[in-house]
């Protein structure tokens, strides 16, 4: 008897499966409602990657060309691939009179980055974050070495470092 039960169950489950895929097919054939792929080069102007997308590491700057990096080099040490190099100098702060580190160049080698996120996790100042750009193709690999702080940018004096 279990022989017939097997056949019956097999047919039933197969039909259940076909019902599900059939619904996908016909809904997409007529409405394109659930299509999850995007038409890439056509929608290049409107394309927005999802929030968690990891395109590259960037440094946020505000409208006064100020960033939040105080050149602590924690990210440089956190990176497992040696992707980041921080070039810094000591300068006297004109207001407080204290000597402090100043960021000259935050060098980021995109070609060595594995998008692991260790640097962003480690940064105590939330100075670096994920960028959404993924158009990285270039004919010369030296183009992949980027400076993350913009030219002439300075440390935001009002920024209070969070204690991590």
């Amino acid at each position, binding site marked *: 008897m279990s022989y017939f039960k097997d*056949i019956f169950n097999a*047919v039933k489950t*197969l039909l259940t*499966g*076909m019902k*599900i*895929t*059939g619904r*996908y*097919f016909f809904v*997409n*054939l007529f409405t*394109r409602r*659930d*299509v*999850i*792929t995007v*038409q890439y080069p056509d929608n290049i102007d409107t394309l927005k990657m999802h929030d968690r997308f990891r395109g590259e590491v960037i440094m946020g700057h505000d409208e006064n060309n100020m960033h939040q990096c105080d050149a602590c080099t924690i990210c440089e040490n956190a990176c497992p691939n040696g992707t980041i190099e921080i070039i810094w100098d000591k300068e006297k702060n004109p207001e407080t009179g204290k000597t402090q580190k100043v960021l000259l160049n935050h060098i980021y080698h995109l070609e060595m980055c594995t998008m692991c996120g260790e640097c962003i996790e480690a940064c105590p100042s939330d100075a670096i974050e994920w960028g959404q750009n993924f158009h990285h193709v270039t004919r010369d690999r030296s183009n992949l070495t980027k400076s993350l702080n913009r030219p002439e940018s300075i440390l935001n004096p009002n920024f209070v470092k969070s204690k991590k």
Partner: protein
Amino acid sequence: MILELLNQFMPAEVAFYVELVIIAVVYLGVFALLGLFLVWMERRVAGFFQLRLGPNRRGPSGLFQTVADALKLVSKELTATEGRDKFLHGIAPYFVIVAALMALSLIPFSAELQAFDINLGVFFVTAVTSIEVVGIFLAGWASNNKYSLIGGMRSGIQMISYELSIGMTIVTMTVLAGTIQLSEIVEMQRGGWFIWTGHIPAFIGFMVFMIAGTAESNRTPFDLVEAESELGAGFHSEYSGMGFAYFFLAEFVNMFIISAMAVTLFFGGWLLPFEIGADIPFVGAIIFVVKTLSVVFLMMWFRWTFPRLRIDQLLTLEWKYLIPISMVNIVVMAILVWLGLTF
């Protein structure tokens, strides 16, 4: 028809051979176009099943995508393994393609459009389609590659097993039809399609036929012969360029042939129900192709729904389920026909 036309301006014997050549060329063209179209359809349908769009760039709805792919394959270098059996390796694709072409020539597209209407029709189709397994087996054997060999072996097991249940289903339907000439089988269905007149056994027969037919044409969920995940591409992993394209096209044309047989045996060939539009010349062919493509779509639906079977499950399905069912089915059908219980 063509023969009469040709007879007007050349001697009878020459006209006969010229007609043969013309028909052969036409069928080769149909074969290639059909293969390309089916590949496109498969990819497009697969796209919709998987919430994608499928090819949609080259030509309207991506219709020329497969043409471009075929051109690419033609331009590829033919490579081959060291130590292969050159002769068998070269000849194997032709077995597959010739078998598919010969079966295609028997398909009754409409009352007029059938190249080769012999009174052994059904029997000839089953015989010719089993030549294909020779080609696949040769390809696997001659490639000098263990994965190809395993693929070839599996194809032998699979095709020989499933041919049995296909054969028995066909016997079931010929019991109902009382003839094995394909055009007559269609004519018999003028009063009602066999799936209707033969009701329960015909329906069971149709299910068995579709399962076994999917296995015959080596498609998922029965694609153990190719088995991308464990055998690379199975029997054709050592073929490149046109050799590969032949196998690929033949696989899709075989799917068409199986579907066309299903339409002929169960769904009244070129006839519409209640004889709507019957006997207008080319309408029949269009109806036939539309019906066949619907059955092809059903096979694609299987492919994108069901997971693949293991080889032992495959054989269990055939020998423990399909064969007993189809045997009982023949008896039931015979009794129904005997007692006149068909519609």
